[in-house]
């Protein structure tokens, strides 16, 4: 156990702090704001970050990145220091985090040159077309299909849970191109311009009252066959190379730490019968239980980092972050609401609502994250099957499965 980072990393940290202090006010909005996606100020900020090696760090220079070797400690320092300074980390989201690594691994040279550089700077925004009304946890059951007509792929069908579709120029989508092939073998990974005729984006309002997601409809949407990444029918494999990444993005311990501090603040300020809510033994007991979990998740992240640095597999320990982290965040928001008593029900639009409804929003939004990106139940399948070596549920008869995907 050695928790020091070593002198060269501390130098990197000191330079980064200096940068954030002197240039941080050039950053757009607050960290994680979606509204500015593709906006000019974000692109300008992103370019500055890349220039200093603070964003797109491991993407090769020829494709617009900073071209540094991957280093988990540097990545950790970047995340710690931007979080501490509360400054935007630049472009985030499915384009840079999921599409770019996929293209770098599987894309043609032309695809890499056309799409990676503008995605890295944030000028080109992407959305992910995976889930469908009939293909959620069973993602390989997608029915959106593409028929090949010469060098054109004609797509019909529907995607759902498509975040940022309304700001996006492009979508990377899973499309069934080989209807006769077995379930997993008939899917292609396709790049679709969002302004193609026949493509319709409709906002999907969730229980939070906001449209964090969209539905995307395809009616005879024509894209070049050259927009398929890798070979036809290889899409499932290609998508899976980056799905694991999404699991790790959700449930990060930094989110829990921020929420925990927020709950302490709420409980300190909330007055119950003339006493701070912190003085309620019952609420305080819940708070401490959640603090222990929050610290445990932080330690767990350090342990996973330790495994990466040693080049070891983290084994089953590496599979539990999303399941625990999302549940913890939901519980933290729930405690804040309970600490507010009846005032906990207030939502956006009244001065009496603490932080403009932040906690009710979080309570609902975090519930969505327990479901999205692989439900808690799918996570438990992954933990028990890949982590503990337990057998999969026996498959239903092959013919039934196949007829299910034809439609």
């Amino acid at each position, binding site marked *: *156990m*050695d*928790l*020091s*980072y*070593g002198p060269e*990393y501390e130098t990197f940290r000191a330079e980064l702090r200096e940068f954030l202090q002197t240039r941080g006010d050039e950053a757009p909005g607050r960290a994680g704001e979606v509204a500015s996606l593709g906006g000019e100020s974000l692109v300008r900020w992103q370019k500055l970050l890349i220039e200093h090696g603070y964003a797109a760090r491991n993407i090769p220079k020829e494709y617009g990145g900073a071209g540094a070797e991957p280093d988990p*400690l540097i990545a950790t320092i970047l995340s710690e220091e931007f979080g501490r300074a509360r400054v935007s980390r630049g472009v985030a989201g499915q384009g840079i985090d999921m599409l770019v690594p996929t293209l770098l691994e599987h894309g043609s040279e032309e695809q890499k040159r056309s799409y990676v550089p503008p995605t890295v700077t944030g000028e080109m925004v992407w959305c992910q077309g995976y889930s469908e009304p009939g293909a959620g946890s069973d993602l390989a059951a997608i029915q959106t299909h593409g028929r090949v007509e010469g060098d054109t792929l004609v797509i019909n069908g529907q995607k759902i849970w498509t975040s940022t579709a309304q700001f996006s120029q492009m979508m990377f989508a899973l499309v069934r191109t080989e209807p006769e092939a077995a379930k997993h073998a008939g899917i292609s990974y396709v790049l679709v311009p969002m302004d193609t005729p026949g493509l319709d984006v409709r906002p999907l309002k969730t229980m939070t009252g906001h449209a964090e997601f969209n539905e995307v409809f395809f009616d005879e949407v024509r894209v070049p066959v050259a927009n398929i990444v890798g070979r036809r029918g290889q899409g499932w494999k290609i998508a899976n190379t980056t799905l694991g990444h999404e699991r790790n993005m959700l449930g990060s311990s930094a989110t829990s730490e921020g929420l925990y501090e927020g709950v*302490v603040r709420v409980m300190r300020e909330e007055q119950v019968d003339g006493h701070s809510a*912190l*003085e309620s*033994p019952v609420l*305080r*007991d819940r*708070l*401490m*239980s959640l*603090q*222990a*979990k929050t*610290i*445990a*998740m932080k*330690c*767990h992240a*350090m*342990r996973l*980092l*330790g*495994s990466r*640095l*040693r080049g070891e597999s983290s084994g*089953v*320990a590496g599979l*539990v972050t999303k*399941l*625990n982290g999302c549940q913890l965040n939901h519980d933290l928001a729930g405690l804040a609401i309970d600490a507010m008593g009846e005032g906990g029900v207030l939502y956006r639009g009244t001065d009496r609502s603490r932080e403009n409804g932040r906690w009710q929003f979080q309570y609902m939004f975090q519930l969505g994250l327990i479901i999205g990106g692989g439900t808690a*139940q799918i*996570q*438990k*399948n992954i*933990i*028990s*099957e890949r*982590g*503990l*070596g*337990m*057998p*999969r*549920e*026996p498959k239903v008869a092959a013919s039934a499965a196949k007829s299910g995907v034809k439609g």
Partner: protein
Amino acid sequence: MDFGLSEEQLLLAETVTRFLDERLPVPRVREVIDGDESIDPDAWRALAELGVTGCLVPETHGGAELSLLDAAVIATALGHGAAPLPFLGSATLATLVLRGAASPAVQSEWLPRLADGSARMALAAAERIEQRQDSGVTFEGGRLQGTALFVIDGAGADAYLVAVGDDVHLVPASADGLAIKALPTIDRTRGLVELGFEAVAPADSFLAVGAALDRAVDAGRVIVSADILGSCDRAISMSVAYAMDREQFGRPIATFQAVKHLCAEMVAAIEPARSLLWYAGHSWDEIPEESALLATLCKAHFSTVGHDLVRIATQVHGGIGFTDEYDLQLWFKRVGLSRQLLGGPEKLNAHAAELQGLA
């Protein structure tokens, strides 16, 4: 930066686990707990050669002077083996109170004997953690009077360290006026005793040593957490193996999601807890300003996680898990005892809030 166990710590875990597999396999554990002695004294002396009994004793007194994280690695292995050995009472709590509170002469007299396994001690401090009815010891006119409850690993100890307020009194087991009464508990792999004091003259007294007592209790909380961790690891591996083997409805029950998900929940709960334990153990030596809070939260968390986990493990086993003959009940009970020791979760959560000024 390296968060995790070192090569040496992994080797230590393996060594102790192998020793227990050979010297204290479950049939032998059952023999010990059904016998007259509360521990296996031969195994304890043999463990002295591996440096286990004296792992927290300074080298100058013949110990191995390991870190608390090292000791936690040992405790995890002992929990995994449900070992009937006084690691918590003698090798941790009493040893650390002697180290932190006793005079050099008393340290020289007792620490080498604790290290080589020829003597055992126990700490009577339950009243410091939580004052219950019908308990409490006073010290007036040079005499101890009253009752000390729930002295962990107290049976067969050669001497007791008795906390009265911030003072500690050393009382040999043979002292006049001392009554030692074993208290039957659910977990027979470790024993509690009750001490009655009738005008007992201590052999030695160490005054105003509250900080040393607190440090020892913090360490004890980490060690109990580690014991729960080892117990949970055992309960999980037994559950997974059983689910793979047991067939119902014509297939292994491990293929049913209802069963698989219970196993996944156990692992998902224990892995971040393991990370917390390592950090709490590390901080006791290396980040002392954080260690009281971490030890307190860690023990509270393990009390809850462990308690739920052995219940789920029993559920995965179905009826067989409820029998005496099947071994899982040993760990169900061991965690049941550990949960209550040195403060249950509610007590510890309240303490954690006080420690950070949130009360």
